[in-house]
């Protein structure tokens, strides 16, 4: 029992150390970069006296170490500071923008896994065949064509020419602010509100960005699945299974895939973390008010409180997903026990 508490303590310690390191690095980058955050707040033409006063108000006249300790003190109390740009507490902002990104990322990941894993298995089983080649080309394209090209092409074809998908934005202006925010996931909130028009609208706005993001992720998942499966299929236990006279499907799904599943969990978890960071380019093209845009705009304006806050959140996501993957290892891989 005490051993378990000890390992839990060690785990918590390593998580905190990771986040602390992240906070230091991000904070320092913000303070040493050659852009003056005060100018972002008061404008380039403001008189010197106003600039000096604002610098003091923002606490930027203090030595960096003092600034950092103050910041750390605030963070411990749950205060991540305010954004210069939005004038809101950073926590409020993140609570507003993150669900938009999470909704996008979650659907994109689901789609990528549902399509990517079977495709990868299929390609591995038919290694070298025409199917394998086609899948490889599709994946290569997904991984190498820049996202903004795909996104703009998708908008041009499905929104402008065919008119079958909604354009940029998360919602049509008709539905803006009509549905009470419960989860921040528009697809769920609209169902909870029973507003089917709004639900339909939300889905229609999700289709293109989700497809683009999931195509990109799917390409990666497919390639990894194929590689893992090929390795597994060359194992001696597969030869044994075949020698037993098992059917092809049972060999692949019953014997090869379970050994691959554990490795896939890591790949999928990291893909999800990558998606949750906020896909800046996709969010920009699709005018999606998510974490990626928030982070970029803040960075461009030297608004460092949101940058540090969002970076810590992203760090936390990676840590949590890694822990989750570790946990799933134990579930799926009997050897880890």
């Amino acid at each position, binding site marked *: 029992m005490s051993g378990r508490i000890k390992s839990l303590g060690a785990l918590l310690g390593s998580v905190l150390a990771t986040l602390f390191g992240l906070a230091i690095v991000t904070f320092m980058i913000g303070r040493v*970069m*050659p*852009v*003056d955050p005060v*100018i*972002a*707040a*008061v*404008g*380039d*033409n*403001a*008189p*010197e*006296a*106003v600039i000096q*006063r604002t610098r003091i108000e923002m606490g930027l006249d203090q030595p960096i170490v003092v600034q950092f300790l103050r910041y750390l003190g605030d963070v411990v109390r749950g205060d991540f500071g305010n*954004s*210069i*740009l*939005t*004038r*809101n507490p950073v926590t409020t*902002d993140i609570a*507003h*923008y993150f669900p938009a990104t999470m909704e996008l990322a979650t659907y994109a990941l689901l789609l990528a896994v549902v399509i990517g894993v079977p495709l990868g298995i299929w390609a591995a089983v038919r290694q070298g065949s025409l199917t394998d080649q086609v899948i490889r080309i599709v994946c290569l394209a997904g991984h190498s064509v820049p996202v*903004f090209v795909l996104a*703009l092409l998708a*908008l*041009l074809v499905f*929104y*402008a020419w065919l*008119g*079958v*998908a*909604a*354009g*940029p*934005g*998360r919602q*049509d*202006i*008709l539905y*803006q*602010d009509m549905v009470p925010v419960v989860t921040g996931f528009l697809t769920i909130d609209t169902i909870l509100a029973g507003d089917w028009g709004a639900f*339909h*609208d939300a889905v*229609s706005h999700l289709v293109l960005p989700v497809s683009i993001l999931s195509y990109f992720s799917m390409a990666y998942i497919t390639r990894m699945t194929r590689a893992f499966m090929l390795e597994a299929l060359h194992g001696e236990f597969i030869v044994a299974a075949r020698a037993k006279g098992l059917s092809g499907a049972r060999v692949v799904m019953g014997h090869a895939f379970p050994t691959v599943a554990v490795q896939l969990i890591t790949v999928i978890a990291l893909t999800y973390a990558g998606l949750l960071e906020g896909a800046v380019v996709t969010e*920009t*093209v*699709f*005018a999606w*008010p998510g974490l990626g*845009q*928030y982070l970029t*705009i803040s960075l*461009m*304006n*030297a608004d460092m409180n949101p940058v540090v806050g969002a970076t810590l959140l992203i760090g936390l996501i990676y840590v949590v997903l890694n822990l989750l993957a570790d946990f799933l290892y134990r579930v799926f891989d009997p050897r880890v026990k």
Partner: protein
Amino acid sequence: MLSRRQFIAASAAFPALSYLSMTKVFAATPKNVLVVAQQLDNMTSLDPHESYEAVGSEICGNMYQQLVSPSFEDPNVVEPQVAESWSAGEDGKTFTFKIRKGLKFSSGGDLTAEDCAWSLQRCVALNKGPAFILTQFGWNAENVAEGIRATDAETLVLTTAEPTSIGFLLYCLSANVGSVVEKAVVSANAVDDDWGNGWLQKNSAGSGAFTLQVWRPSDAVTMQINPNGGYKGSLERVILRHIADPSAQLLTLQQGDVDIARNLTSEQIKTLQDDPNIVLLRKGQASLVHVTMNVGHEKLKNPKVWEAVKWALDYEGIQKNILSVTHEVHQAVVPKGLPGAYDENPFQKDSAKAKALLAEAGFPDGFSIDMDHYSAQPYPDIAQTVQANLAEIGIKVNLLAAENRQVLTKMRARQHQMILAAWGTDYFDPHANVDAFCINHDDSDDAPNKPFAWRSHFKDDAVMAMAIAARDEKDPQKRLDLYVELQKHLMHNSPYAIMMQPFTTVACRTGVEGMRLSAISSGHSYTEVTKS
């Protein structure tokens, strides 16, 4: 005959198709809502006494009124707005404004001289970024209650520290810092001594045509019609949607999901020029693209070098090849569209003359120099042409590109040698630019004021005297003439090679009418927009 497989495929496709057809129905925007695609990414505040950047100023301009406003047709004329008349006292320091009767705020409250006085006092006392436009008349937190007061419900009296030109004062009062906010509402939302600043950053309390419904940063701003603001058209709401990517703006405009696109690129504007569904509006902006030489640098001290650089640049070539639909050549310090602008462009590319001037300055073989510039287009293209032009007269230019805030921060620290940058005018008066470019009383490193001229060590007493004389001239017309004289002189006697003035182009769908553009962003107005 349908095969079973075809039947299954068709029935599977059916729900999908019906779903697709529904989307189409919702495509056009409602008739009573104007939807604008715009980059809303550097707004920091919608408090008119604090907002300084273009988008925020523009939104404030649509929600608040000032005592007076410049005419859309003729920038040299000031028109009454909240004030119906004004007069200057004999001493040149006292100015009396009669406030128009019957004006109401969006809350329904009456707009009185007390609201006007309180608003101006608020701006001075808060002393945010743009407050210098008012505090330059000598007001500060201590004396403002005396200097700005309402003597009765319809009379506002302003007393300046020094004799002041009424022309100058009026233009300054027409800026957003002169906005009238409702005293009762804003002071009710004050926290500590913030004059309601925290609240007004995200709310509105004005008498303009619109009120703020919601501002969701990097997403949308929604303005509603102010029932008391005198708007006569068919709109009920104006929604500004943050669409960062110009291509996405263009697509939504062509699809009819937005009525107006604000940030199209020059290539996109070219493709729209013959589109029957789109009307393009164009207006010169009070902004300048300039190459400035740091006089503090050994090689850039000599006025002959300044002149040589100005004769070396290929203004027309740059305009034609790089900036054809976005900028015009403009070489004077006051941009077109502002009062007192001077519209002649004496410099053109003459490498032989430039080379001779450089030799006279003692650099027959030229020299080598660094030039900082913004890394966003079109600046790298302009910088390369400048580099090529100067190479022809023997000046070897080293280009240093960086993100624009970084370039400006370096310039503020006086660490640049040459710089290619843009300058935006703060308010609708020639003094705004002349002040920044000409007046530099103290050039020491720890000067109390660090104006634009200070950053490049430009201090010329003759120029400064001309600038002050123009600012203080009592006769409004003569005042503007003095500015023209000053600009002619400055062109040949300053380290500023002013090159271009940008245009803003707004693409509207046909049927959307009445959008008015001004040289200064706070003047871009939706107050007369109608949609059919």
